[in-house]
């Protein structure tokens, strides 16, 4: 025992002499420990799976998927690989999340500001909207839009026609497709336009800082935005035509062909996600605006800023600081909630990859791991972007 005691004391002595080692050692040991636990579990799982005759490994990803997917943004058919099916699912998840985030933000800002309105009708309306939608389970809302509202649409033969080119029926909503000629020139032109606007704004800011002269930045930017593309369209012959959806009845089955079809599953999911999340964002917006001291507005007014300028330069930048962190959480929630898609046959990553592909291959551990890592990556990407934006608008202390 004394021998052990001596050893310990010598180690102790050594560590005290080498503060760097003393600092790093516990952390390194913890890391080793964590890795050995993870290693142990994966070893245990793989040996048990092998003992039960279950194939393991990620090589299945390059096998032929041999199933089809209803809706994909990239080309896909049953002869392509599981990896490709994964990509289709991932893109569909990103699509519905992006649509959801866009509309949730717009609706959230609208209802958040409306709830602060001095008009009791407007603020009452916003209160009812927020309190109803945020207190009903999201899955129920998805079911409501999908099984109740969209199922009320007529059959394809009796579609609802809007503006003569949008057709809505139970199989989806059909809109015209853009058919471009010389689209490249137009896109290059657009990029050029944005560069011009950026340079102009820099110049205008410099001018203001140096001479105090204010240029009408917004008006000139808007002018550039229309003028340059207009020139390009005329010089390079950029053309735009529409391919309209047409009703096609074959063997008693009516379907629209041509145009773009938006499947009802996407509509229902995007609707439910946007409305549900918008209520939380609305509350964030309200909190942000209420969080700004009245004195700020008064001070701004006293130095002669107009109402518009007060809102744009004083209130909103400060409110954003309060709004953004909790809204980031809502964006993350929305993205993760999009996995409820599987309940209504929207082919997102959970339905396609953690559903069909998992079933057909039986590789539960691998597929669930990939799916979890995918959501983790998506969430972290959103967080990083929002933190960057938050830093940009945060109060810079000097």
């Amino acid at each position, binding site marked *: 025992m004394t021998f052990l005691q001596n050893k*310990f004391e010598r*180690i*102790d002595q050594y*560590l*005290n002499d080498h503060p760097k080692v*003393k600092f790093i*050692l*516990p952390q390194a*040991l913890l890391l080793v*420990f964590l890795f*050995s*636990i993870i290693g*142990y579990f994966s070893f*245990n799982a793989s*040996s*048990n*799976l092998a*003992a*039960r*005759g*279950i*194939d393991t490994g990620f090589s299945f990803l390059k096998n032929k998927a*041999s*199933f*089809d*997917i*209803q*809706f994909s943004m990239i080309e896909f*058919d*049953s*002869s392509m690989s599981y990896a490709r099916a994964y990509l289709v699912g991932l893109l569909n998840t990103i699509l519905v999340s992006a649509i959801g985030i866009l509309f949730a933000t717009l609706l959230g800002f609208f209802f958040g500001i409306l709830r602060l309105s001095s008009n009791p009708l407007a603020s009452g309306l916003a209160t009812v909207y927020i309190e109803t939608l945020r207190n009903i389970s999201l899955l129920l809302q998805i079911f409501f839009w999908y*099984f109740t509202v969209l*199922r009320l649409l007529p*059959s394809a033969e009796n579609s609802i026609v809007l503006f003569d080119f949008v057709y809505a029926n*139970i*199989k989806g909503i059909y809109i015209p497709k853009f058919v471009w000629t010389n689209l490249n020139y137009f896109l290059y032109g657009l990029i050029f336009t944005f560069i011009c606007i950026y340079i102009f704004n820099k110049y205008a800011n410099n001018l203001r800082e140096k001479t105090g002269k204010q240029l009408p930045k917004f008006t000139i930017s808007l002018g550039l935005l229309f003028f340059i593309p207009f020139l390009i369209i005329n010089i390079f012959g950029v053309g735009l035509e529409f391919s309209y959806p047409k009703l*096609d009845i*074959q*063997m*008693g*089955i009516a*379907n629209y*062909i041509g145009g773009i079809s938006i499947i*009802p*599953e996407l509509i229902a999911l995007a609707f439910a996600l946007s409305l549900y999340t918008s209520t939380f964002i609305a509350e964030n917006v309200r909190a942000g605006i209420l969080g700004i001291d009245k004195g700020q507005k008064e001070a701004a007014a006293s130095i002669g800023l107009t109402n518009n300028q007060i809102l744009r330069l004083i209130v909103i930048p400060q409110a954003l600081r309060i709004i953004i962190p909790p809204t980031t959480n809502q964006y993350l929630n929305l993205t993760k909630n999009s996995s409820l898609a*599987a*309940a*209504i*046959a929207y*082919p997102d990553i959970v*339905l396609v990859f953690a*559903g*069909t592909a*998992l*079933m*057909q*291959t*039986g590789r*539960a551990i691998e597929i669930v791991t990939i799916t979890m890592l995918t959501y983790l990556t998506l969430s972290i990407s959103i967080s990083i972007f929002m933190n960057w934006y938050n830093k940009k608008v945060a109060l810079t202390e000097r």
Partner: protein
Amino acid sequence: MKNLIKTICGISVFALILTSCGDGGKKASTVDATKKQGFVKCGVSQGLPGFSNADESGKWTGIDVDVCRAVAAAVLGDANKVKYTPLSAKERFTALQAGEIDVLSRNTTWTLERDAAIGLTFVGVNFYDGQGFMVRKATGIKSVNDFKNGVKVCTNTGTTTELNMADFFKSKGVKYEPVVFEKADEVVQAYDSGRCDTYTTDKSGLAAQRTKLSKPDDHVVLPETISKEPLGPVVRQGDAKWEDVVRWSLNVWIEAEEYGVNSSNVDSMKSSKNPAIQRIVGAEGTKNGEALGLDQEWSYRIIKQIGNYGESYKKNIADTGILPDRGPNNLWTKGGILYVPPVR
């Protein structure tokens, strides 16, 4: 610093314990485990009339349910000692692999991939099926060859159906849109509401689900069968004893019909002169139960409590109007393809 060293020692001891408990000793046979827990853990569908369906009081009936009941009668002596776990197509194999259930009897198609790659063993076939299509009569579609580009097809996810239809439409060069749901009820609802032009699954399933539509008579199942779907019970790979018990419970159930042994005459059949019948009912001097590690009455109980395959078929599938015609599911002696190895 003493603390640090103590922590490290603690962690290493913990790690040692973790690694030493490895994958434990050999698992006890499922037969023994089943006897110990007093019930058979059976995985069934979430509701498919004729195969596995629960009534209002929670009582499960169907030809798949009868397989589990037969195993319970053989092993535990009472066909009612079954715990049913309703599973979606997606969940079923994981539930079996993980030991949540011990027999999967859920209209599951026997395929090479499932048998060989995911650690499962199919023990036999209790229903020969094939994939078909259901359409609205009003469309005038008479054959699967009438499907044209853009057809919208509703079905379940996680099934061989998804793969069969991909192959089928590909071979016909028809572009189709699959709308796949997790639950069969959602598929039925989607098809019924007009979201899809056709509903595809196993033909027995189509016949059963048709009864759930709002106007069953407006729909028709097309005559063609696009795939082979031998449906049967599944067990985990590597437990030969349990596998044998399930396989022979299934076989004796079918063979009883072949020799005309049923629930009402099984007692009198015990004194039959025919040695084959004597073996089926487990009369004096036969040794089948011993070979399986069960008692001599195991097969007698199956027939007494559940009846033979023909009785189950009649009660669950024919009399309910799902598929009155037995077709391939008749005995080989009567023009079908039901042919099981002899119980001897």
